[in-house]
């Protein structure tokens, strides 16, 4: 028996929402009054109805949804890509042309579906049928697939042959026009589901889950669980896309000058010019930081804390305010959270002694409820036992000290002192091709003086090319 993903899942897959939407649109296209006007396709002697031109589709989309040309073409392309509409003239070319190229609708059985992924058995039967019809003249990649399948599902190969023959006999019962349509439909389906090598796979079905419990009992217990699950899902917090998109746009606007790909990075992108000045200028221990870096600290508290230099500056400021123990406590908690499991009890103990115990030298101000809970938890220390206290102190710093730091003289002076690196001058011959070469392995600790002497940039500050000091 072939391993069938459908029967193995206790719960069936869901249809992807975008596909459901496309299906709705396809169905509305069938409306006799408001749908697409169809024409007949003439093939020598046979006439097959229900064909439409590419431009028909695009125009219908424009009219129905009041969208632009471009968008209509894009949506039409999606229909063809996902196999809801297939081209009649060049079946292998799955694109929508906004001219009089003919197209036809695909039958629901062959619609793209994440619920019913095509099985190897089906594909094997199709290839066998094609083999019979074309007297062995399969396309190269189809021949390869055929042979691979023959090996893989060899145990059921007799069935493949039997079924292929029977399916052909069954379709012989239809009249000529329908037979042609059937062939086209099936071919279109397999072109979409098993694309030829070199073309993109249209859909990702996700990992195949093989659960141990193959089948569920459809009893009261099962339905109770389903109801509960759906009720919880309904109550889930949802943010309207209009709101989260607003904040997303704001975020992008704020960070765009900082993005090395969108804005470019000064002095130059090390990956392109092999000049690591950018990394050197932004390293931890640099004397004068870059302006962008210091500006970034004002975006959010986490930005400040994540930058080691920022953290140091902040600590200096807090020392002036006599609240440095907060930051030290926070750091110690981070250490506990991310450190070695074996060292947790001793670290937690240290933290208690230094920050939490009644007479501690660097006592942190935590509210009584959290303190009580933490002290209780300290009896059985684990990685996250200090989380509540850490969170409290974090918000304290964020709401109180952080805004004041940003307004402080310390920060403003640093910002004024911060430098904007000079962009390295482009080489004199702008069309000269920069030869790329791979860096020596980072495992090599030594600086291999691999100065290829290529004209990269005329900047005098040039480090050893090819050695990335920090990858």
């Amino acid at each position, binding site marked *: 028996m072939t391993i069938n993903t459908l029967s193995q899942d206790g719960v069936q897959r869901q249809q992807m929402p975008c596909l459901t939407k496309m299906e709705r649109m396809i169905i509305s296209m069938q409306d006799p009054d408001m749908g697409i*006007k169809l024409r007949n396709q003439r093939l020598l002697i046979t006439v097959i109805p229900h064909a439409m031109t590419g431009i028909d589709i695009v125009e219908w989309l424009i009219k129905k949804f009041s969208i632009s040309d471009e968008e209509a073409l894009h949506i039409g392309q999606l229909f063809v890509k996902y196999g809801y509409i297939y081209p009649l003239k060049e079946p292998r070319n799955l694109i929508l042309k906004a001219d009089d190229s003919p197209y036809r609708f695909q039958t629901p*059985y062959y619609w793209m579906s994440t619920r019913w992924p095509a099985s190897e058995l*089906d594909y094997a039967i199709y290839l066998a049928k094609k083999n019979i019809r074309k007297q062995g003249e399969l396309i190269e990649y189809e021949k390869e697939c055929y042979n691979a399948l023959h090996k893989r599902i060899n145990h059921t190969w007799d069935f493949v042959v039997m079924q292929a023959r029977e399916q052909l006999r069954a379709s012989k019962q239809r009249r000529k026009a329908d037979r042609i349509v059937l062939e086209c439909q099936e071919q279109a389906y397999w072109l979409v589901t098993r694309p030829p090598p070199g073309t993109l796979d249209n859909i990702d079905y996700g990992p195949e889950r093989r659960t141990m419990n193959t089948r569920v009992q459809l009893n009261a217990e099962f339905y109770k669980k389903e109801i509960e699950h759906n009720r919880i899902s309904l109550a889930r917090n949802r943010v309207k896309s209009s709101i989260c998109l607003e904040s997303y746009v704001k975020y992008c606007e704020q960070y765009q000058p900082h993005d090395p790909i969108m804005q470019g990075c000064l002095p130059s992108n090390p990956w392109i010019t092999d000049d690591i000045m950018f990394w050197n200028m932004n390293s931890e221990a640099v004397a004068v930081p870059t302006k962008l870096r210091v500006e970034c600290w004002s975006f959010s508290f986490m930005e400040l804390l994540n930058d080691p230099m920022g953290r140091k500056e902040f600590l200096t400021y807090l020392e002036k305010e006599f609240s440095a123990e907060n930051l030290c406590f926070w750091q110690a908690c981070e250490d506990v959270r991310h450190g070695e499991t074996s060292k947790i009890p001793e670290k937690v103990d240290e933290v208690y002694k230094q920050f939490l115990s009644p007479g501690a030298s660097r006592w942190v101000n935590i509210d009584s409820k959290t303190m009580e809970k933490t002290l209780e938890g300290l009896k059985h220390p684990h990685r996250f036992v200090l989380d509540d206290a850490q969170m409290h102190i974090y918000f304290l710093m964020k709401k109180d000290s952080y805004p004041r730091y940003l307004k402080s003289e310390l920060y403003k002076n640093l910002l004024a002192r911060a430098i904007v690196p000079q962009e390295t001058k482009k080489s004199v011959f702008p069309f000269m091709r920069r030869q790329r070469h791979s860096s020596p392995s980072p495992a090599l600790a030594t600086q291999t003086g691999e100065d290829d002497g290529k004209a990269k940039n005329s900047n005098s500050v040039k480090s050893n090319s090819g050695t990335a000091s920090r990858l």
Partner: protein
Amino acid sequence: MGKDECKTMLDALNKVTACYRHLVIALGSTSDSQNLREELKKTRKKAQELAVANRTKLTTLLKDKSISKDDRAEYERLWVLFTSSMELLEVDMKRSLEIGQDFPLKVPTRHLIQTGMTGSTTTVAARAMSVQNMKYEADASIDTVDLKELETEIAQVDQMMEEMEMKVQVAPWAVEAKQEAGAELKSTVSVGNSSVGVISICEEEPKETVEGETGLMKVQ
């Protein structure tokens, strides 16, 4: 002899499976009609009868400890063919339920997909049922009423397959196909003893490919 009987029954099941798939493909398209729904129902019932018959026969044969090793290997091969057939049937039944629900026949706002197929499927169904002509006797609400029956039948098939998995221990990797790659190109004696006779499969009009020049007639 048990083997020949098995093969005939398997052939019959194979034929009905192929026809059923053919009918399900037409669901929801302009080939769909009340008759098609009835054909689906009849074919399905026939398939189930054959499935049960096959299963009973094969399980008895496989349970028999006194058969020779060769015989046993052959029965295991037939078993694998049987289960593959059931797989296809199961999927097609589930899909026909889904598509049948999505495309009820009597709702005026629900339109069938204009796929270019307009002919009827009665000859296919007749082939499945092994009759000369199909008789249609169902009433108008078959498209909804039948779906309920279909659901129960799917559950039955599911259960049957589960039982089959549990009760019969056949290792699929131990089964070797009799046909080698490309066997379908040879003359078409079917694997079992089919009463349908030898049919030549080669294409009647090999030159007429749809990929050639097609012209569209003007809108009527």
